[in-house]
């Protein structure tokens, strides 16, 4: 079982890889809309990648209003 810290790190790694951002440039508290320069639909694409990676389903409503990596990771963690 992953810890929240591990899940958060994996989310950061996947986001940096998917959006071609240098590894290590993202932090858990970052607003991913601002930091990655993405819109809400691109965020949904990222969620699909995260679902595949973690083997979970994350309903859209679970991430409604979520904008930072740490909260996103906690929502994933609750479904692992």
């Amino acid at each position, binding site marked *: 079982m992953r810890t929240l810290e591990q899940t958060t790190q994996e989310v950061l790694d996947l986001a940096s890889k998917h959006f071609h951002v240098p590894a290590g440039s993202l932090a858990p508290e970052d607003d991913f809309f601002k930091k990655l320069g993405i*819109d809400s*639909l691109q965020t*949904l694409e990222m969620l*699909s990648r995260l679902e595949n990676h973690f083997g979970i389903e994350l*309903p*859209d409503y679970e991430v*409604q209003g979520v904008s930072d990596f740490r909260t996103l990771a906690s929502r994933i963690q609750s479904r692992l």
Partner: protein
Amino acid sequence: MLDLSKYQSIGAALQDALDQFSNEVCLIESDREREKERLTYRDFKARAHPLAKALEDMGFGVDDRASIIMTNQSKWLISAYAVFFVGGVLVPLDYKLTPDEQWHLLKHSGATVLVTEYPIWRQLSVAEGRFTTTNVKTVLVTEAPPSADLQGAARWEEFQGSGEPAFVPRARRDLASIVYSSGTGGRPKGCLMTHQNYLEQCIALTSIYRFSPGVRYLSILPTNHAIDFMVGFFGPFICGAAVVHLRTLRPEYVREAFSKYKITYVSLVPLVLKNLQKAYRRASTGFPPANAKSLTRLWP
């Protein structure tokens, strides 16, 4: 299509549509690969009338206001019809607003009933605005887990009256809904929409969207917006067409829905269209020729 010139209200037109097209499919609801629900107009009526009866039994009626804060789905439309059936005024609010913004508009609108989804209620129920919005007396929550503490709300699925509700006629000049602007130019403004406004809009819009039984509309824009309310609910319904709802608006599922459900019409904003185009282009590179061909048809 019903002849809307003969009707006085949204509720009256919908009431006739449910009977006239009773065997036609009116709603399809899909969640990822799974089809969650497929309702005929007869099914829709069977779901809406017990809700209307329960509203009637609690004393909700003429000019009373009921708000809906939900993502696009069948229960949105069923709830709206029930409100119109008993003579109420609909207050559709944006589910993407913050809980305090939603409470502010609930207070401003004077809504006494709120219909919402469990994930939204989880946030609304603990927001500060709840304690100053005393006008909302009844909250109905959909799809709540069996063990959930609803914080004073009732389960939508269990809020049913027995027996047939009495239809409450409204006149064209009567208020049908209060639609709030987004607030990008300041505080949101509530637009007072009469039944006449909707009936005339519908006549205009259905000259562009040629709905009829068998035609399918993909409802993506939020139903609280005027355009989806008209062409993703009222318009298709008074023509016997079907509305398709997707519970997951991931580009890959939206893309698949077009062919899977043989969509005839969709209304989009440019951002969604651009993303769909990107998704199609990406998918087409790894797809066999048949899929690449469908991309070309959509974006030549």
